[in-house]
């Protein structure tokens, strides 16, 4: 709060909107000016009497783009000096480097300072795709013509964030969807909504899907193994094969963890030693013979015969049933790090 009881707002601008200069000044290092500058005047007007733009931080777009981490650290330091209640960045419209700068500065302020943050961008601004999951980005027009409208919508949502009020849907509040899914109760049941959507689709009328299709990552394939007879192989499964009794109590669905289990002294998995914790398939066959999911018996044979160099002495298991992709990716990364540290060359990953 300011001495007169107003909320303290810091505004981030690039060199152009910060009135330092055009492209020739894009290398400008971060600096602070007291009070509002340029679009900050419209911002102050929209904020009214409840909040004050106490400082404007201006930085050149190229400086940020060329020194992402360092620049965001420097800017963050300037923001934290202002003892601010919230950060407004941009809006950046369709300016790509500016959009990325607003995104990275906003993300850092939200993460490191726990501060409400709002920015605005045109939907195709590369910064929008990069940062929409981390901060609220108001959808703006593609040029500064849309300044007044954008600032109004930004301030409205910012005040909700500061007051910790419930944020409505992207349509209601005007922000770019962050891809976060929440439940609510609709007016009509799902079947009725489905029939209505189908009728609209058949008539060629507009309709909005309730679930846009997800995107998945792609990774570059690793080079092949050169010498299998010298290689160390590990077994990993999402089929829930755990020692009998499920010692880590891995959940039958929506697993919150993975387990690491010794294979020392075992040449075959049996119903005496292991079982499945997975709740998404008929467990009878895996419980009778867990090798049907985690092929320890044949891998031991292949090691004995010298086909495979050695078997990593632990296997790793989680339950891939209703487990979110984000969590699965987290377990995968942790398992991979452990395997790498143990000098494992390749993994056989079995899934059910």
């Amino acid at each position, binding site marked *: 709060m300011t001495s007169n009881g107003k909320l303290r707002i810091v505004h981030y601008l690039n060199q152009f909107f910060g009135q330092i200069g055009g492209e020739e000044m894009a290398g400008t290092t971060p600096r602070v000016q007291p009070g509002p500058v340029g679009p900050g005047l419209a911002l102050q007007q929209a904020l009214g009497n409840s909040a004050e733009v106490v400082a404007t931080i201006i930085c050149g777009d190229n400086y940020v783009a060329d020194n992402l981490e360092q620049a965001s650290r420097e800017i963050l330091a300037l923001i934290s000096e202002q003892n601010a209640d919230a950060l407004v960045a941009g809006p950046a419209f369709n300016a790509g480097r500016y959009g990325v700068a607003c995104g990275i500065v906003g993300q850092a302020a939200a993460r490191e300072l726990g501060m409400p943050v709002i920015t605005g961008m045109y939907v195709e601004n590369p910064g929008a795709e990069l940062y929409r999951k981390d901060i609220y980005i108001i959808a703006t027009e593609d040029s500064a013509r849309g300044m007044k409208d954008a600032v109004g919508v930004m301030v409205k949502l910012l005040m909700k964030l500061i007051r910790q009020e419930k944020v409505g849907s992207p349509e209601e509040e005007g922000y770019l969807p962050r891809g976060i899914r929440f439940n609510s109760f609709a007016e009509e049941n799902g079947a009725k909504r489905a029939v209505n959507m189908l009728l609209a689709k058949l008539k060629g009328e507009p309709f909005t899907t309730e679930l846009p299709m997800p995107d998945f990552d792609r990774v570059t*394939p690793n080079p092949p193994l050169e010498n299998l007879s010298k290689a160390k192989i590990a077994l990993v499964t999402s089929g829930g094969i755990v020692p009998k009794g499920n010692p880590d109590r891995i959940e039958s669905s929506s697993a919150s963890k993975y387990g690491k289990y010794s294979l020392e002294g075992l040449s075959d998995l049996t119903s005496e030693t292991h079982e499945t914790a997975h709740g998404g398939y008929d467990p009878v066959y895996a419980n009778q013979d867990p*090798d*049907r999911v985690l092929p320890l*018996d044949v891998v031991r044979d*292949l090691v004995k015969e010298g086909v495979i160099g050695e078997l990593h002495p632990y296997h790793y298991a989680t339950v891939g049933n209703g487990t979110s992709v984000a969590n699965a990716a987290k377990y995968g990364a942790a398992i991979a790090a452990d395997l790498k540290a143990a000098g494992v060359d*390749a993994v056989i990953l*079995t899934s059910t």
Partner: protein
Amino acid sequence: MCTVVPISLTVGANRIVPAVAIPHPLGNPELPCDEEKLLRRALVEKALKALQTEVEGQTIFE
């Protein structure tokens, strides 16, 4: 190694070996024990071959 190859393709796996069935990817309870183990060995050998094969992108080892 998975049964539902389309999911492995969707989520981005690069070396994919199709397996038998969801509840028993590396087995078939209808086979006698020794034949079932041979089936499992063949599948694991296929996986080992995949690991030794250069791939450019997502590849299914039928």
